[in-house]
């Protein structure tokens, strides 16, 4: 055994460059496969299985996925508006525990501004059992003032803090070409504690703030209406982008979904939210499959590199094997030397693969967090963490077979007579 270790160790060191490159390619393949599965699983869980503190979202007639992306994840554009009347009906519905109005349409430096009621700070749970918490020195906005409460990430990225002033820009996303900055000036009165959710990227202002922003028109009655300062807005003119709903029971979801989506023609109810997002992931499943296939192909390439690196040394090592055989080494021994070398390369690659995996995960997790505000829980166990290294070791063994057979078949007398 010590002989085997000496021969394998010496060979790997003698071919340090090819050994290193091969180990790195195995590490990359192993890390990539594990990362693809882990990120895929965690992205799906984060977008579909998170313990939200609300059950449904009501929005304009259209795509439920778009509605959820827009309202829950603060991505995408709003599919349209719903009249204030629908909000009132739901607010007063016995099946509804909480109806929170959302009005969108503006941003500040790319961060969405959401008009809503004060209940967002008092009753709304962004995640099961979790409400927004204001940082020390902060307070919730006054619905009658131009005040804003900003998410933790907004504060960090823009430098805004309590007392800062901001002018909203038109549109839910930054428009670098035609940036219309509203005249209205808002004062930041509060900064929220981090929630590790898309809400960290949101600027919350009073509902009326969105309606009364210069240039905004309300079409609740079907005709355009521009609110005037000091004049109350009639409910008929009012519009909302969405209504976030916490229901009293799952049965309420069934009946409301039936009532709004099947019988009604005015709005769409996205319920349950997880299932809605799951539909999106199912539709995008082919992309995940492609990524998996690419990762598998990288594994095959890595196994091929093991084969190539070992096979390429076989000519120079034929003499070594012939000498070892002449000293009494069995065919099985030289066969084993190559197989063990392949396994050591695969093993080192797998060990390093965990580092590659962590690096990819941190990168991907950061990217997803930056782009969506969704924080992936990357350290959740996935079976790929076990079967990927095992599979790689198996591939390494298979890759070592051909050169091992060549070593096994070394003709001692002929090789030594050539004296090469």
């Amino acid at each position: 055994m010590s002989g085997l270790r000496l021969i394998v160790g010496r060979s790997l060191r003698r071919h340090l460059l090819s050994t290193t490159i091969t180990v790195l390619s195995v590490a990359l393949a192993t890390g990539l496969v594990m990362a693809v599965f882990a990120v895929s699983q965690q992205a799906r869980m984060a977008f579909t299985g998170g313990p939200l503190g609300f059950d449904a979202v009501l929005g304009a007639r259209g795509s439920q996925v778009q509605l959820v992306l827009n309202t829950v994840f603060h991505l995408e554009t709003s599919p349209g508006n719903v009249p204030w009347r629908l909000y009132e009906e739901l607010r007063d519905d016995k099946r509804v525990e909480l109806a929170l109005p959302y009005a969108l349409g503006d941003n500040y430096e790319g961060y969405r501004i959401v008009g809503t009621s004060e209940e967002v700070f008092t009753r709304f749970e962004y995640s099961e059992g979790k409400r927004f918490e204001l940082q020390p020195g902060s307070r919730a906005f006054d619905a009658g003032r131009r005040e804003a409460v900003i998410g933790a990430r907004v504060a960090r990225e823009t430098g805004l803090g309590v007392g800062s002033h901001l002018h909203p820009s038109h549109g839910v996303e930054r428009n670098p070409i035609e940036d219309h900055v509203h005249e209205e000036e808002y004062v930041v009165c509060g900064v929220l504690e981090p929630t590790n959710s898309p809400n960290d990227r949101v600027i919350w202002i009073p509902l009326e703030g969105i309606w009364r922003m210069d240039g905004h028109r309300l079409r609740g009655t079907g005709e355009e209406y521009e609110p005037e300062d000091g004049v109350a807005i009639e409910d008929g003119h009012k519009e909302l982008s969405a209504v976030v709903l916490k229901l009293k029971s799952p049965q309420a979801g069934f009946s409301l979904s039936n009532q709004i989506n099947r019988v009604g023609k005015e709005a769409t109810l996205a319920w349950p939210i997880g299932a809605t997002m799951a539909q999106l992931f199912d539709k995008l499943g082919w992309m995940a499959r492609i990524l998996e296939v690419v990762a598998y192909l990288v594994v095959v390439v890595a196994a091929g590199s093991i084969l190539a690196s070992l096979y390429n040394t076989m000519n120079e090592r034929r003499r070594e094997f012939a000498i070892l055989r002449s000293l009494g080494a069995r065919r099985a021994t030289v066969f084993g030397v190559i197989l063990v070398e392949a396994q050591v390369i695969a093993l080192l690659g797998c060990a390093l693969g965990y580092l590659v995996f962590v690096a990819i995960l941190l990168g991907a997790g950061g990217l997803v967090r930056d782009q969506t505000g969704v924080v992936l829980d990357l350290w959740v166990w996935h079976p790929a963490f076990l079967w990927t290294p095992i599979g790689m070791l198996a591939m390494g063994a298979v890759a070592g077979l051909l050169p091992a057979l060549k070593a096994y078949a070394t003709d001692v007398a002929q090789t030594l007579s050539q004296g090469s």
Partner: protein
Amino acid sequence: MALLHISNLRKDYVDPDGVARTVIDIPSFQLEAGRQVALAGRSGCGKTTFLNLISGIATPDQGSIQLDGRELVGLSDAERDRLRANEIGYVYQRFFLLEGYSALENVLLGMMFGPGPDRALARGLLERLGLGDRLNHRPHQLSIGQQQRVAVARALANRPKLVLADEPTGSLDVQNAEEALKLLRGLCEEEGAALLLVSHDAHLLATFDTRLDLADLNRASVGGPA
């Protein structure tokens, strides 16, 4: 009883033209335990093939090779490997040291396939051969004469009953050749190993009491070079 007993040994080769040629055809050959025999033979007469057959590196087409009463012909690959590792030492003309390993490791590697590595024994052998200060030198860091001494140490490290030497001084100058031969013969004598040395060097052959001509033993060499 003879240590090595060979009878009706025959080895054929098919040359590149597809013609079968007999390279070894030896009716009988014996070597007593502890004896030192020199076998003369011109280049290409089958000397190396003969030693390869004895060591089990090559297999005969017919005949019998008995080493210490044990029949080699018919043994499996693994059995021949084990026998070679434990009972036979082999010194080649080109030494065939392993380049990536030190002098000490070259000797230890030879032991690993036999009774097992014995660092003290390997070191002692190399010291006896004047290589005490070259233990960690790689072959390319050693002179030709020193390389030959490492090869001798490796051949004797497993305390073999039989040492085969194929033109062991063929790569050395006269002075180094005499010295290497003296060391090889001395060590074989000390260890009680029989030595079968083949060479075409008349000067070297003359130092042996028992000299045989392979051409006399090998009927296949009558017709010319095999």
